[in-house]
């Protein structure tokens, strides 16, 4: 049975706001009607349409893993009309959410394998759901080592600081590598761009899946590094971003060739992307 009212958003209330950086915030929300969360069934990698009434809708990836509880987290950068207003909202205020939309990371295919995540800047958000999913008590035994290599321009641009510095390193069989582009006095960690750091860490392609998200320029220079390390295109997974209005494959604009990113994506393997027009 198709969902006949997919354009209808459901009211949510903001329960927590974390300032990640000066222009990135993570909003934790709960549905006003708990039944909706019960049946939401979001999987890591999926997206939602956020409604700020009076401003419209925006497609935002679900940052939280379903394993973490009966809530949703959205990490939002202030870049446009809707996100400007969202950033002014406070705990207790309401907006609307509909979804979940799109495909998800192929977590079944990844079973028994090591996972190597690469994130740049604010774009750790769409893969964080899978990191937490794989690290959850429920599914941890399905996966091998979980490593996260994350870079940002400066210390001030680092998102998910507590995950990177405290929560994830404490968990069993993880490796967290954080870098910033240019040296800063207070920074004791690695300095350098993401692609060269990947080369330095040199993950082995053996029984490993790389999951990459970041600005196009970072992806462009990181992919050849993975190829050099011996990763096959099937072992590299990424997630795309496009302008969307309906998220249902109807409004037309997020197509890459015959595929709609909103329903056939946003998650694609490099092997899949190689077979698609370069129009993203």
């Amino acid at each position, binding site marked *: 049975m*198709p*969902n*006949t*009212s*997919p*354009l*209808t*958003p459901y*009211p949510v209330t903001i329960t927590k706001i974390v300032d990640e950086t000066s222009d990135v915030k993570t909003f934790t929300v709960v549905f*006003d009607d708990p039944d909706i969360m019960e049946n939401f069934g979001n999987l890591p990698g999926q997206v939602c349409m956020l*409604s700020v*009434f*009076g*401003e*419209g*809708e*925006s497609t935002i990836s679900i940052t939280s893993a379903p394993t973490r509880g009966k809530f949703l987290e959205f990490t939002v*950068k202030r*870049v*446009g*009309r809707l*996100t400007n207003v969202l950033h002014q909202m406070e705990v207790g205020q*309401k907006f*609307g959410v509909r979804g979940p939309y799109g495909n998800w990371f192929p977590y079944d295919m990844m079973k028994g394998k090591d996972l190597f995540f690469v994130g740049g800047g604010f774009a750790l958000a769409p893969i964080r759901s899978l990191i937490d999913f794989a690290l959850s008590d429920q599914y941890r035994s399905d996966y091998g080592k979980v490593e996260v290599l994350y870079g940002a321009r400066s210390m001030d641009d680092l998102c998910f600081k507590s995950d990177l510095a405290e929560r994830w390193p404490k968990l069993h069989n993880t490796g967290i590598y954080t870098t910033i582009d240019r040296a800063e006095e207070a920074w004791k960690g690695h300095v350098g761009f993401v692609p060269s750091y990947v080369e330095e860490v040199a993950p082995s392609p053996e029984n490993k899946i790389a999951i990459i998200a970041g600005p*196009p320029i970072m992806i462009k220079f990181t992919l050849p590094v993975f190829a050099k390390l011996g990763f096959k295109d099937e072992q590299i997974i990424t997630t795309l*971003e*496009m*302008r969307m*209005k*309906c998220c*249902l*494959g*109807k*409004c*037309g*604009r*997020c*197509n*890459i*060739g*015959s595929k709609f990113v909103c*329903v056939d994506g946003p998650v694609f393997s490099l092997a899949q992307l190689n077979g698609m*027009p*370069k*129009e*993203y």
Partner: protein
Amino acid sequence: MEARIVNKGQLSELLDKLAKDYDLIAPIQEETVTLFRKISGAKDAFLEYTNSDISPKGCFLPQNEKTLSYMYTGDTLEIDKPEGAKKTVLFGARPCDIKAILTLDPVFEGEKFGDEYYSSKRESTVIIGLSCSKVLSTCFCYAFEGGPCDGTGSDLLFTEIGDKYYVEVNTEKGKALADAYSQIFSSQGADQLAKDKEELAKKLAGEFVRKVDLTGVKELLDKNFELAYWSGDDQKKCIGCGTCTYVCPTCHCFDIFDYTTGDFNGDRLRCWDSCMYPEYTLCAGGHNPRPTRKERVRNRFMHKLKYHLDRYNMVGCVGCGRCVKKCPVNIDITKIINDLKEVAQNA
């Protein structure tokens, strides 16, 4: 298949009755332009048209449609949806435009996501088609297995034969309507007119002047996204307006935005949008995957000739000829099809 006869003299009576019992949408003429609007009776209808300037797709996908209204009242947020569609008759749609509705169906009535707004109108509307009596120089429905007297997709199809309409009853919905007005839809002598209709269809089929042959085009586009052809004159002369997409009966792209009507109240609207506009694909961060007219022109024609086929197994064009006629700079999909065919042959 069942058939009936309606005397032309009784058409006014039928339209007046339909307007009373249903929301009746029919072609009207406003100054020089023919479009589909809700009418109050036969006097408003304009049936001597060849093809309307704007297709009747708006019956199911209006240019402006309210999808919900919202209201903040203190601590609560209320979301109301508009009522479902009223009983409607779409009268006088041409065969190509009815076929266009069939190409919209799989978009809005998908396996995973339906669309209550579209479906509610689709279900509550009886489509009465009107065969063409003339083929225009811009017409090419035959290239997509359509025809000037093709009833595919209609509930009833009217064909003008002398002083009568030969009426084909194509669906149960159509039959129910014909039965409800049985004093107008007569069963007597319909068989004799069947032959006349067939002859008319045959005569009109010979009047197409545009040669359109899709052989090899899809295969070429399947294999080639980058073709030198797309850097040619079409993208140079395109002025980037939305005319082709707005007059197209199969274009379905839309935008969704909010329209504030009070301090904390407003409507959410879905309105036609056009892939020819630069901001159509512009992301909030400033990135645009189709930044120039070349990508946008290519996307429009790839959508018509390949993407729609890939997804729904239907060509995204019905040959109505509106974009051919209305394009300010004479970008012509039939020329593009034929040019691509040539590219395929020379490849």
